[in-house]
């Protein structure tokens, strides 16, 4: 069965520092991969996605992620974090099967930004 692991429950980063959020997935074929962000009281917003092609994908708000098949990873990065980036981040894998592309989410990583 497909699964997603986000090893870090909570991360604190200084404003202006770089960020990397880890995501590992388990799926037999090439997955669809996503990163969503959820701010307090807000819905899920898509940051970026990988379907095929270039393994380094750019997203909104200066985020990028790299798909590494050999490591079954899809880590999210940002070179310089802003205080407004504080939120919860979810990695998800979509597997095309009879349930459309129902997403399987990781447990999330909460990002705190210190000044």
């Amino acid at each position: 069965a497909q699964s997603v692991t986000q090893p870090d429950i909570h991360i604190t980063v200084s404003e202006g520092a770089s960020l990397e959020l880890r995501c590992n997935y388990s799926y037999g074929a090439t997955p669809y991969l996503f990163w969503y962000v959820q701010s307090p009281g807000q819905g899920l917003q898509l940051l970026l996605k990988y379907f095929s092609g270039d393994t380094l994908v750019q997203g909104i708000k200066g985020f990028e992620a790299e798909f590494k098949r050999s490591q079954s990873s899809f880590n999210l990065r940002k070179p310089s974090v802003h205080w407004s980036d504080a939120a919860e981040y979810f990695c998800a894998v979509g597997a095309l099967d009879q349930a459309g592309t129902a997403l399987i989410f990781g447990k999330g990583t909460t990002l705190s930004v210190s000044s």
Partner: protein
Amino acid sequence: GAGVSQSPSNKVTEKGKDVELRCDPISGHTALYWYRQSLGQGLEFLIYFQGNSAPDKSGLPSDRFSAERTGGSVSTLTIQRTQQEDSAVYLCASSRTNTDTQYFGPGTRLTVL
């Protein structure tokens, strides 16, 4: 509308009552998904609709949960005889096709007393 809308935004109910949660997808989106977000279980897929096809109910946790989608647009998630463990945020998402990006609504926070 510009995005997925859900109503009500908050619902408080008593154990044993039935509740209905509504989702209005983005116009033209043929695929519609329901998810549940709870502290203990994280984000879980519940049910999927594609156009007028029979829904995929593989994620529904019990037969107390059901959903319908009328006219290929608005969807209603019904929970019968609510239990305290049903307390969660119920999220709806829609996508243009079943392989396209899913856009999420703001959710309905359900509290069962």
